[in-house]
């Protein structure tokens, strides 16, 4: 029987959250940036497979960093 592997449970994988279109828009205006200026994440990235993210969506990453608990980072989904 093949084992079911949950990528989200791995110690190296931080929590990924999909932002709604409104939240993403609010983010762009808050930092006064355009989507093209954002760090990217591939649409085929294993960590966002279950979020059903489309190209152009924004993913919020809650990193468990050594300098800050739940450090927030954003990545935009790009076509592969």
């Amino acid at each position: 029987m093949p084992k079911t592997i949950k990528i989200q449970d791995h110690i190296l994988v931080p929590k990924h959250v999909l932002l709604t279109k409104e939240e993403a828009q609010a983010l762009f205006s808050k930092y006064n940036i355009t989507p093209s200026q954002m760090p990217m994440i591939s649409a085929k990235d294993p960590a966002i497979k279950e979020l059903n993210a489309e190209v152009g969506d924004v993913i919020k990453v809650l990193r468990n960093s050594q300098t800050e608990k739940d450090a927030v980072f954003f990545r935009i989904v790009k076509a592969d």
Partner: protein
Amino acid sequence: MEEQLFKDYEGKLTKKIIEEVKAEVKEQGLTKDQTKKVLEYLKEEYDTAKISPGEAIGILTAESFGEPGTQMTLNVFHFAGVAEVSVTQGLPRLIEILDARKEISTPSMEIYLKKGVSKDMAEVKRVAALIKETKLNEIATEFSIDLTKLQVEVQLNQHRLKDLKLKPDQVAEALNANMKGVKASVNGEKIIIKTKAEENELMETYKIKEKSKEVFIKGVKGITQVLPVKNNEEYVIITAGSNLKDVIEIEEVDETRTTTNSLFEVLKVFGVEAARQNIIREAQRVIEDQGLDVDIRHIMFIADAMTTSGTIKGITRSGITGEKKSVLARASFETPLKHLINASIIGEEDDLNSVIENVMLNQPVPLGTGLPELVTRGKKETAKEGKK
């Protein structure tokens, strides 16, 4: 009441600092006024510690890595403990990480096992044997050629077979599956390998004999050595060779803690964010093993820069340095002529927006006080003062 006080400082201080203060306040039994004083002082310190706009953090990071780099060992191999698994360390390993090499010189994994198995030495050994890549010559005692029948005869090592819980017919099956153009069959304790071709020459048989030694029989491909090591009450399997994808599929393996030092394998299996985390982990390990100290923020900054594109890009001319917009900046790194010639052919423009190209042209660099530009409103039109 106190909770409200801490809430006021959210956003002004990091969550981690606030939590530490909370714990300390409880222990010391501080009053509300005293707590406020502490928080106010911390906020002041925190604000002064922040990097100011226009600070050249890239150069700071480069220096912070460069200086300890000179003190690192150039000795490539080190044998981890009593174990015979060797790992690349020091400067060569750091270069490997920062260049984001696809083929690293000593891939290695740390395989954690599920709670039920991890403390039982016998079970751990069994799983380790299951993971290790076994080739035919490891379970055979003798390879010989029968000249009259023109076939290869392989004498199997019965003890090894027992250890690996293998049966001769399973070995023959693996040979048939993984070797082309031959037919393997069991004859008592021997395995007979014959070519399928009509014409059969001695030379061909000899080739089969040599080839068959390296045929993959069982285990996980790429894992050449396994070594159970005790680590805080439980056993961890350290390996030479890495194959994250196949190893985490094994039933007894704890897939949530198993890691590899190969950056690209982590990227493929767990994604960019995990790959970033792995870059930090690996770089920090190298630096700590050498008894040096580089602030984690520098390492995090490099890891961020390497992973912004969604995959890992090394600090090489084919990686992030090659993506710089300015021709002069690219030319200053490696292979200058190539970049300059190509840029001239296609008529590239350089906006002189960054540091190195302005240094070359003897102009003020856009850093620190050189960053802001003066904008004045003229009498009739809004004029923007050009660069000096």
